């Protein structure tokens, strides 16, 4: 693998006396789709802003596409496409006017052709004179993505791009991301959705400003060292009551007629579950630990650390 697209070390950012990003070191390889995960307020947006030169870090250093994030913001801005969490193009301009504005700011040559091509690619050519504010959530997101990649960036940073977008549009969006990555673009994408995390090559999990897990999905699940069992049957509600606070049990999550029970101490968990299954008349089976189970566990751990 060539030089990493992103390598930041000990990145720290404080707002007042709140440390929002706390000693985050991160590496994203070229051509990789890196997922950036974590609960609300965990510092994902702030970290992304630090990396694309929109915020000044209080500590740490790093390079994005080989440019220093402290001193070479201009160069980074020219080679990075950043899609904000909230739609932040001009709602009172038409679709074409927005694209033309972006093309102009990047100083693109044959602007007219680029904008026209983008409109065709988007399938928005017929609606090019519609105000951007009148678009639905899914279309706004497509417009924003198109505007971010128009200048052919080498790195794309997407901040919760699929929030409030329907499943079909999300699927299409991810297909597009994979297509772009296949062409050599590096993508960093933050998300809450587990299914989206599983579409990333590698994930980084941020919690309360700290990077607490990273690797491929399989690695993250394996490193968490969790055991999961499922209790099925009529008595799941009773089983849930009986399981609470018992040895080995750390998470109890009902899914329809089944109960996912997760814990770190596999032996203790199995003993408890077997006993409760007998008492409540449910059937116990072993299951694969899911990414979601891992994240819930990580969130709980981080909260314990905060207390």
């Amino acid at each position, binding site marked *: 693998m060539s030089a990493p697209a992103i390598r930041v070390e000990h990145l720290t950012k404080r707002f007042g006396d709140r440390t929002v990003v706390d000693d985050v070191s991160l590496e994203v390889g070229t051509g990789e789709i890196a997922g950036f995960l974590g609960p609300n307020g965990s510092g994902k947006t702030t970290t992304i*802003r630090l990396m694309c*030169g*929109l*915020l000044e870090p209080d500590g740490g250093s790093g390079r994005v596409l080989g440019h220093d994030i402290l001193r070479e*913001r*201009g160069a980074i*801005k020219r080679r990075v496409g950043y899609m904000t969490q909230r739609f*932040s193009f001009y709602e009172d301009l038409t679709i074409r006017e927005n694209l033309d504005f972006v093309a102009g700011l*990047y*100083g693109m040559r044959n602007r007219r052709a680029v904008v026209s091509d983008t409109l065709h690619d988007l399938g928005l050519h017929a609606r090019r004179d519609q105000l951007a504010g009148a678009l639905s959530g899914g279309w706004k997101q497509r417009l924003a993505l198109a505007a971010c990649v128009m200048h052919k960036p080498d790195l794309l940073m997407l901040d919760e791009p699929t929030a409030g977008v329907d499943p079909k549009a999300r699927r299409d969006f991810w297909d597009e991301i994979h297509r772009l990555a296949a062409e050599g673009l590096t993508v960093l994408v933050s998300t809450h959705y587990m299914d989206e995390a599983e579409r990333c090559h590698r994930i980084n999990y941020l919690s309360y400003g700290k990077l607490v897990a990273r690797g491929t999905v399989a690695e993250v699940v394996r490193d968490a060292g969790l055991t999961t069992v499922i209790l099925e049957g009529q008595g799941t509600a009773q089983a849930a009551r009986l399981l609470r606070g018992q040895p080995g049990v750390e998470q109890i999550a009902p899914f329809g007629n089944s109960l996912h029970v997760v814990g770190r101490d596999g032996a203790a968990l199995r003993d408890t579950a077997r006993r409760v299954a007998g008492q409540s008349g449910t059937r116990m089976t072993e299951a694969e630990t899911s990414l979601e189970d891992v994240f819930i566990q990580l969130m709980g751990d981080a909260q314990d650390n905060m207390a």
Partner: protein
Amino acid sequence: MRRLLSLTRLWTLIVKESIQMRRDRMTFGMMIGIPLVQLVLFGFAINTDPRDLPAALVSPTQDRFTRAMVSALELTGYYRFVAPDATAAEAEAMISRGDVVFVVTVPSDFGRRVEKGAEPSILIEADATDPSVASGAISTLGTVAQEALRRESGVSVPAPPLNVVVHRRYNPEGVTQYNIVPGLLGVILQLTMVMMTAMALTRETERGTMETLLSMPATPLEIMLGKVVPYLAVGAVQVAVVLISAKALFSIPMVGALSVILAGVFLFVLALVILGYLISTVARTQMQAMQMTFFFFLPSLMLSGFMFPFRGMPGWAQALGEVFPLTHFLRLIRSVMLKGADAATVSQSFVALTIFVLVLSGAALLRFRRTLD
């Protein structure tokens, strides 16, 4: 629940409103601050019967009769001779610039004529662009001068009657519009220009488009000029409208060169637009930008000499008035439009406006945050 007025609900609403009011410190501060500042400022500064008006004396001989008359005039409280020994040319330049409101010319044969008993005469030239300024001073003039002369001549030789020639310069008929309409040009430009630009950047911040704008390669200077230039064009249209209506509706004389007027207007509008831009780098919401604009607008209206005679205000208020671009613009536009002053005569105003432009743009560029911090 069906009651029209529940005290609990009402109280809940009042508490919520009070909390919001307290959180918005800016508005809260202005609610307390504005009345206080304005009361003190305007209560002391505004004077519709202006006194201590600056005057120049042109008297080649400077004899005892002249001195007696001058000190009698100063005693009335209306006149303050800032240039007690000016040449005719110097005095002309000063009244044209607006540095003095009166020029008192005592002819060289004045003393001889008093002693001979021949009717002596003096010339009072008053800057009548603002008709209200000179009226009080002029009305007391004749009797005061005659009285002084009588005292100085002694009882033995009765003083001959004094012939006071009054010239109401620039606006002999005392038409109020001559003074107001050019001033209005400044006031209208100030209100619209500052307010519109103050919103410009704040709107980007409020709608979140600032983040995208900052993530793309545009320099602070480009962003500032990109905001300023369109509003300059709007200002140009306003100027054309006001100047044409000044001529067509109010028949305001345009004595000076149009090029000088336009140069002054350009500098003024530039200063305003950049001031607005500066406000928009400070304000976080459009509402705040609006409040700041008004906070700036009111004192400048009162202290610039638009509503009340500038020279009639106490010294500290005049000094305060100097910090508003409007003050310098009014001086410039009135001098050029009504008095026919040339560029050299009003160079001070040009310099002042240029300083505003430079200082404000420097401050705005420093204030501009390249990041979202």
